[in-house]
């Protein structure tokens, strides 16, 4: 028996209830078994000797900007806007239709308070004033000459996953429940470089950021974060920002709730105290059962969810499947993701797809042999600081259900004997 075969026999034995297999199975035999699982999940027929029309006629010409296949019409943002104001609302990233760790730019979630401005970059400036020794104003061209750096990180709305607070589990594809989170490579100027140029005064403790959109959205950012890893981003995934993501400039505060990542950034006022804007008092605060509200809850805690299979998918009978999902934490790297296929009675460690980056989507995978019986799938993330995703009952016991923001409880999918999946509290 070869070493490979020995390993295969070893890892084909379940490592936890519900048919979860050893994560090394896919690491060792990823091509062969991955393809098999794909066929089972989609029911596609792999045979095809007949020549297809596109093999016998010339294809389409070149394009200036590529578009997705017309067969992928379901991989779209789902828009939920104010009926009285089309530019006020959100659109969700279809996490259930995506793989890997990077979100395509056209599918990055949106939260606009007052529509997407079409900003002429020649008429846009970034102004630093208030507690600076040398208040300064930059054109976009000025900023493009600054030393740029890139980093990959998640941007997640503080209100992401908030349907989890509902009494009844929402039934919707996972992206339209947890997809106010997207992960990109952002390229820009460390904000510390600009603060240094303007001469931030020692008594400045907060920066009041403001966007140049019709909402003029403002919010207070602690100086410590501004000097740590905050970027003034100009590029997303290699191209200049899209208008809906802040063109020509936006803030990126890795790991902190997205409302602080101000888009269309045009002003930073250094101050001793926070401005106490609407979006850091009336909103983005969390009312607790005591009647007091948590405020300045900036960091997005560890979260994970199984994206495949998930509600909307259907398992085509018993057999081998690959469980795939996303985990991330605003506090740092994901250390471990565990998956349960018996409602949380036993857990198996998932394989983490490299690269595992701080404050970024981390793809996890685990092989699973479903025997056709009903069961509950769950995942839970633990980050490098030791923070572990709580069970929903524990989170609700601590925070009540009126907090609205910062929901990060373990997510559960019930698998029915017919192969359909639904969201459950279990």
């Amino acid at each position, binding site marked *: 028996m070869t070493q490979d075969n020995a390993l295969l026999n070893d890892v084909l034995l379940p490592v936890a209830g519900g048919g979860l297999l050893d994560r090394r199975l896919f690491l060792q035999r990823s091509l062969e078994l991955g393809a098999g699982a794909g066929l089972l999940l989609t029911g596609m027929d792999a045979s095809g000797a007949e020549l297809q029309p596109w093999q016998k006629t010339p294809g389409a010409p070149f394009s200036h900007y590529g578009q997705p296949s017309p067969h992928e019409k379901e991989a779209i943002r789902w828009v939920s806007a104010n009926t009285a104001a089309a530019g006020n609302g959100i659109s969700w990233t279809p996490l259930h239709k995506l793989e890997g760790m990077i979100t395509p730019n056209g599918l990055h979630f949106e939260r606009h308070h007052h529509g997407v401005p079409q900003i002429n970059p020649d008429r846009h400036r970034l102004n630093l004033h208030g507690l600076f020794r040398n208040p300064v104003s930059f054109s976009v061209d000025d900023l493009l000459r600054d030393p740029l750096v890139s980093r990959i990180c998640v941007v997640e709305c503080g209100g992401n996953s908030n349907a989890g607070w509902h009494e009844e589990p929402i039934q919707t594809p996972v992206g339209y429940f947890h997809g106010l989170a997207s992960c990109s490579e952002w390229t820009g100027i460390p904000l*510390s470089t600009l603060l240094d140029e303007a001469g931030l005064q020692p008594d400045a403790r907060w920066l009041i950021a403001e966007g140049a959109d019709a909402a003029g959205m403002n919010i207070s950012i602690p100086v410590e974060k501004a000097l*740590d890893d905050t970027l003034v981003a100009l590029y997303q995934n290699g191209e200049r920002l899209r208008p809906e993501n802040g063109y020509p400039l936006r803030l990126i505060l890795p790991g902190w709730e997205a409302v602080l990542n101000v888009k269309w950034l045009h002003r930073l006022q250094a101050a001793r105290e926070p401005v*106490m804007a609407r979006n850091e008092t009336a909103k983005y605060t969390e*009312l607790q059962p005591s009647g007091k509200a948590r405020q300045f809850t900036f960091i997005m805690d560890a979260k994970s969810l199984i994206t495949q299979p998930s509600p909307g998918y259907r398992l085509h009978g018993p057999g081998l499947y690959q469980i795939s999902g996303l985990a991330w934490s605003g506090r740092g790297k994901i250390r471990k993701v565990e998956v349960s296929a018996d409602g949380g009675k036993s857990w198996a460690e998932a394989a983490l797809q490299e690269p595992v980056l701080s404050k970024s989507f981390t793809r996890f995978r685990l092989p699973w042999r479903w025997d056709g019986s009903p069961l509950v799938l769950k995942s839970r993330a633990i980050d490098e600081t030791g923070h572990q995703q709580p069970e929903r009952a524990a989170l609700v016991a601590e925070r009540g259900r009126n907090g609205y923001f910062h929901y990060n409880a373990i997510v559960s999918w019930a698998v029915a004997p017919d192969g359909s999946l639904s969201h459950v509290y279990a």
Partner: protein
Amino acid sequence: MSMPETGRKAIAALIVLCLFGAGLQAAPEGPRLGKPLSGADSAAMDINVFPDGHGLPAGKGTATDGKTIYDTQCATCHGPKGSGGSAGELAGGSALDGPHPDQTIGNYWPYATTVFDFVRRSMPLNAPRSLSDDQIYAVTAYLLQINGLIGETTEMNAKTLPEVRLPNREGFLRIWPSSP
């Protein structure tokens, strides 16, 4: 966990010093292309209003003046007297430790200055930045009056507005930086 106030402040200060120092050291040197921004230019673009009143412009208004503006510019979305509309509830609201309370200016917002700041920058939704400073003071006064916080003829201006203490002023627990 309880900790003496002085101890907490000392720890927060230590954290601040560490991060502050590290951040400054890490700042990559740029070409320094920023143009000096004059005090007048800064003042012209600055619409932030702080809880102590810093940033409030000259001008004044009362709830009586504000009701007319509210009824024509705001009531369509926010409902008559700040309640029952499609947009956020602005007045009333039940106890915050009860089941599903609306979070209004009267029972939830901590600072009266926030009303002025937000109305000036974002409202009305179909025409932001269209109200005069007097009109904004008047609408702010009306929103405070329908919450029972000032009288119909109480003048709101740069001095009186920050003096209006909202009921939920002490209702917030700052999570950052003491226990992020």
